[in-house]
């Protein structure tokens, strides 16, 4: 704010502060509202009579003797066994992140250090693959997976998600490795290292910031995937997102919509924590793609 050009009249300053506050409400209010409402009974959360019931929990008090109830959570976690879906999600996320980072680092490093023509074509192919909606590939998986009895299990889904994730991982790591000076591994090679030794002893120690950022986005992709995992997992192996969708299918009729609300709130908690801890990395990852790409 040192520059004269950036100083603003008071009115404009107030207007933009007001706008920021409105945006914050638009961005955050739906989550706060749903979180609050998840501790209510259905006729409070969806109140026909009076919308303030959702705040005060009048019917909840009538039913449970207190304005807050864990009934929705009890239904989702205990009765419907949401725990197993949560465990499945974390298994999938863990292996997707580890595998895609391992093979992605090798590939991204190679792309950044090779000056041959084919690296351009590989990157363009990756860009095209990145642009394709993953669901268009699912029809191609079905028949082979059924034939070879691979359908419905977690490892298959993990490998598919790793592959779908690769184009993005490659682009991201490629641009991170481009930023690491080539002289580092060149000099290691002059000292007698092979390319792989140079990678292991010189590049690996300095690559972690980029790898962590890329890993975050791999995690988000695996965690948030609905289309592919709901098609490729059998009912007993479902991850969180397909399970939430399944709650909608079964519970709209049973009137237990609060199970779904509780499950939705539960599934956002890990993301809140993630954004809280890794905000800086997520922002830098988003912008890295823009500046380089």
């Amino acid at each position, binding site marked *: 704010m040192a520059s004269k050009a950036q100083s603003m009249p008071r009115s404009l300053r107030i207007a933009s502060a007001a706008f920021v506050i409105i945006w914050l409400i638009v961005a955050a209010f739906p989550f706060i509202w749903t979180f609050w409402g998840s501790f209510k009974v259905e006729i409070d959360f969806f109140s026909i009579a009076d919308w303030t019931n959702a705040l005060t929990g009048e019917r909840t008090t009538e039913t449970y003797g207190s304005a807050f109830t864990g009934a929705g959570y009890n239904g989702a976690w205990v009765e419907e066994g949401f725990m197993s879906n949560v465990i499945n999600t974390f298994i999938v996320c863990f292996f997707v992140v580890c595998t895609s980072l391992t093979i992605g680092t090798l590939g991204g490093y190679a792309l950044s250090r090779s000056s041959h023509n084919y690296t351009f074509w590989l990157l363009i192919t990756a860009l095209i693959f990145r642009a394709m909606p993953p669901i268009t*590939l699912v029809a191609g998986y079905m028949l082979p997976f059924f034939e070879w009895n691979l359908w419905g299990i977690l490892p298959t889904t993990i490998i598919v998600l790793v592959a779908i994730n690769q*184009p993005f991982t490659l682009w991201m790591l490629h641009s991170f490795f481009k930023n690491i000076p080539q002289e580092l591994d060149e000099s290691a090679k002059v000292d007698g290292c092979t390319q792989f030794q140079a990678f292991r002893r010189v590049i690996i120690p300095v690559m972690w910031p980029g790898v962590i950022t890329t890993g975050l986005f791999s995690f988000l992709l695996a965690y948030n995937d609905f289309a592919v995992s709901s098609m490729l997992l059998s009912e007993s192996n479902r991850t969180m997102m397909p399970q939430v969708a399944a709650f909608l299918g079964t519970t709209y009729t049973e009137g237990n919509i609060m199970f779904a609300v509780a499950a939705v709130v539960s599934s956002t908690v890990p993301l809140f924590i993630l954004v809280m801890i890794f905000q800086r990395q997520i922002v830098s990852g988003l912008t890295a793609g823009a500046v380089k790409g």
Partner: protein
Amino acid sequence: MRHSTFFWFFLPTGLAMILFIAMPIVSVVTQSLFTPHEAVLISVENCGPFGCTQETTIDQDATAAIRDAEPLGRFVGLQIYADRGHIAVSEVTEAWQTTDSLGAFFNRLANLPFYRAMAFTLVFVFVVTPMVIASGLVIALAVNTVTARLKGIVIFFSLLPFVINPLIGSLVLFWMIDSRGILGNAIQWMAADPTLSLKASTGLMWISLIIYGIWHASPFAFVIFYAGLQTLPTDQLEAAQIDGATRLQRVRYVIVPHLMPLMTFVALMQLMDNFRIFEPIIGFSAEAHARSLSWAIFNDLAGETRQLSSAAATSVITIIGVAILLSPVLVRTWRDFKGKA
């Protein structure tokens, strides 16, 4: 780097992409040319005291056997693309010949599932993308003026709609705009119409899906533009001010051109992501009013009878659509590459 070293480094990721992206594309294209075998029918002549009757039944064993032997089905060429569920060639020609005005023709077209899905997908893409860029820019400009201490918390809350899964995000919004939810109630009150419901109206459903799309993607545009604003050259701004540019003119002639490359990037990402819109339709239970190409694929695959061929044909059409959207970028990248070489 030597070719062989490159090969070994790239092998695992290359293999993963060939096996699970390239091969499935081939598989999808092949699948779209085949259709399941028809049931094998057998005619049995039942002769009783009142004469003989011909009875046709399905030979379950023979049907299962032929379906097992050739799981792809029988080859039908482009027939699936042309059927009523996809391009609907005969229906479109018929509609073209029998209707006398363009409006009536488009009305007929809107009843065909593929064109309905296409219409919504395109409207969504070309409304949401510019709106996201505009709102992202405004938010970035506004946030840029608040004090540095608040920026962290603003960015934290702004990121939430973007990192949350579209299914979850749309559900959270949908529960609020439900006619019994808080926003639904508010809208009814404002319109003074207690029977107003988003679920009942196609137009309102489209609007709420579009609003969801903007809400979901604005943070992405905002973060990128905000990063771009940090590199804004102050001397240019000052020069513009000395030349008498108003604040709006400075935004129009200095800031926007500076952010132009980032806008192209956001537009590109948004085109790709909005074209695949799918989860919000599930979250909003909007199937009756709005369908997209991705939803059509999902619906074909999810049913009791998995309609692989129909899904595959829609997939191929979707891939072609993505390719068309992406072609300007590819051409530009190719020119850049040629220029460098």
